[in-house]
């Protein structure tokens, strides 16, 4: 379980890296958009190579209703509560981005089969806060905040839902959204009193699918925002322009003293780096994934960076090009000068790796989660049901897959583990699509240190 002292999590990122290996994974699986009238679920996957059921789905916690579109999730507590022995990392907070229902799963009673502890209905959230479309979950001490991408009618910019530790709605977390146009992901670094948030689009824009023309009509984001975390209001905006179209996943260094952070601009296929230089915050583009020619396309295919992630020691940055089909590993020891150290291919539109470990990969590498020690990267292939249906329509019948990549933490380098494959196309209720993953002991996108 979590570290030795008092509360949940670990005293430091270095201590987290020494934690026991993950044996169970919790992964979102969807039926939304497939035509199967079944609820979305959280799959438990056996990740213990010593076990007879290694690399299989061993538990399925179904949501009470259909149509949620489970997407991202988070823990009720992380290392920010490490000093609080009254807290434990027990509840997984699993929002439905379409329904706005927020499900609280208890993972302690039976870790292999989490159960529904509570559901906060989307209807209650809309009524009390005028917010909808929950996305990123972070805990702050014993409280929880969730980025909400729209108002109750699905219009931007949304805001932040504040829950107490018993999952009651406190209200809206932010005091002001300032001039922010859209919401999506966020991460905070309390020692510097800063939070950074990114921009997707209004739910009414992105949920029905992606119309490229809407980018030109400014219906998609191209800015990131620095917040005064204590005042709960934005204080500075970086206009990223064409370099930063659709900035999605936000990652600060895990080191709580650092001011360096990164965001992946999905459509521009760039990585943007920010840091504090004296008293000023600055940003720069550090990675630019070139568009690739495609025999059937009139224009080259953009990478579409759907996710980025930092290893716990802040040495490596991983990114996925969902349309190209590759995962890349960069050494960011010098965050201004990343060096590419590894690359693997799975699925994608360029046809470089249509079959991996004997399974047809429909979709491309999409969500990733890294083990605390940095050695195992778990990858899933579905992005968002309506967008999947546009770019990879066969995913409806083939389902998604989960693969695992071995990462060399000393010299850099990546290779796909030939022994690990979870084919969600073979699920007992029919093909489903897999999305975000978390581990019971915390992972590389859940924990923040005060």
């Amino acid at each position, binding site marked *: 379980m979590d570290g030795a002292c008092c509360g949940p999590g670990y005293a430091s990122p270095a201590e987290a890296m020494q934690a026991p290996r993950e044996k169970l994974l919790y992964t979102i699986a969807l039926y*939304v*958009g*497939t*035509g199967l*009238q079944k609820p979305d679920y959280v799959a438990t996957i056996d990740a213990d190579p010593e076990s007879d059921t290694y690399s299989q789905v061993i538990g399925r916690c179904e949501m009470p209703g*259909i*149509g*949620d*579109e489970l997407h991202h999730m988070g823990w009720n507590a992380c290392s920010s509560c490490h000093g609080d022995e009254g807290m434990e990392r027990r509840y997984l907070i699993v929002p439905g981005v*379409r*329904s*706005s229902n927020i499900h609280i799963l208890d993972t302690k009673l039976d870790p292999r089969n989490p159960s529904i502890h509570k559901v906060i209905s989307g209807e209650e959230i809309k009524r009390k806060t005028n917010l*909808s479309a929950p996305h990123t979950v972070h805990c702050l001490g014993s409280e929880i905040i969730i980025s909400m991408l*729209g108002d*109750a*009618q*699905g219009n931007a910019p949304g805001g932040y839902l504040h829950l107490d530790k018993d999952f009651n709605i406190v209200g809206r977390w932010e005091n002001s959204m300032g001039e922010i146009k859209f919401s999506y992901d966020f991460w905070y670094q309390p020692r510097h009193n800063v939070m950074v948030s990114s921009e997707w689009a209004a*739910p*009414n824009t992105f*949920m*029905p*699918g*992606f*119309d*490229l*023309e*809407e980018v030109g*009509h400014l*219906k998609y984001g191209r800015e990131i925002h620095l917040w005064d975390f204590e005042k709960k209001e934005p204080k500075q905006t970086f206009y990223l322009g064409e370099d930063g179209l659709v900035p999605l996943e936000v990652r600060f260094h895990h080191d709580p003293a650092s001011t360096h952070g990164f965001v992946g601009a999905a459509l521009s296929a760039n990585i943007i780096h920010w840091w504090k230089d004296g008293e000023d915050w600055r940003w720069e583009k550090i990675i630019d994934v070139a568009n690739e020619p495609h025999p*059937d*396309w*009139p*224009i080259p*295919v953009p990478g579409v960076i759907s996710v980025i992630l930092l290893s716990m020691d802040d040495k490596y940055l991983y990114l996925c090009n969902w349309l190209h089909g590759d995962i890349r590993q960069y050494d960011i020891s010098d965050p201004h000068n990343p060096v590419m150290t590894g690359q693997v291919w799975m699925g994608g539109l360029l046809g470089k790796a249509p079959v991996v470990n004997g399974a047809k990969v429909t979709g491309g590498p999409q969500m990733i989660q890294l083990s605390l020690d940095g050695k195992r990267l778990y990858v899933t292939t579905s992005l968002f049901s*309506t967008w999947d*249906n*546009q*770019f990879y*329509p066969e995913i*409806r019948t083939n389902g998604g897959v989960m693969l695992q990549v071995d990462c060399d933490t000393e010299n850099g380098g990546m290779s796909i583990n030939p022994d690990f494959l979870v084919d969600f196309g073979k699920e007992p209720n029919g093909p489903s699509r897999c999305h975000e993953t978390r581990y019971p002991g915390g992972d590389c996108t859940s924990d923040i240190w005060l």
Partner: protein
Amino acid sequence: MTTRTITLANRDGATYEVDGRQPLLKSLMDQSVDLPYGCEYGGCITCAGKLIEGEVNQAPQVALNNRQINNGYIILCVARPLTDCVLEVGVDSHDKLYRNPFLDPLEPHELKADIAAPAPITETPK
């Protein structure tokens, strides 16, 4: 109540009597038709179906672009039937709902209503 008869062409032509003042999704689900849905306010496209015959008022919907509307799609969670209607419902009616946006771009008049250009004037044959 104004009763309308709704025929589901891709559900063996099953027919349902519905209240014209209610959104179709609610009326049909109240009669145990199993349909996909998400937001229930007309913004997420999950519940889209195809109107084969008849007329609906779906003014509150914001999910469809004009290409999808021209292809007959309606948003069942907000659409109210103005006449008897024949529909196709569920994901098996979504053959033309999704398209690769890079391979098959929209014309300016095919965007969503709030940003669409006026439809081009087509010459009417004399």
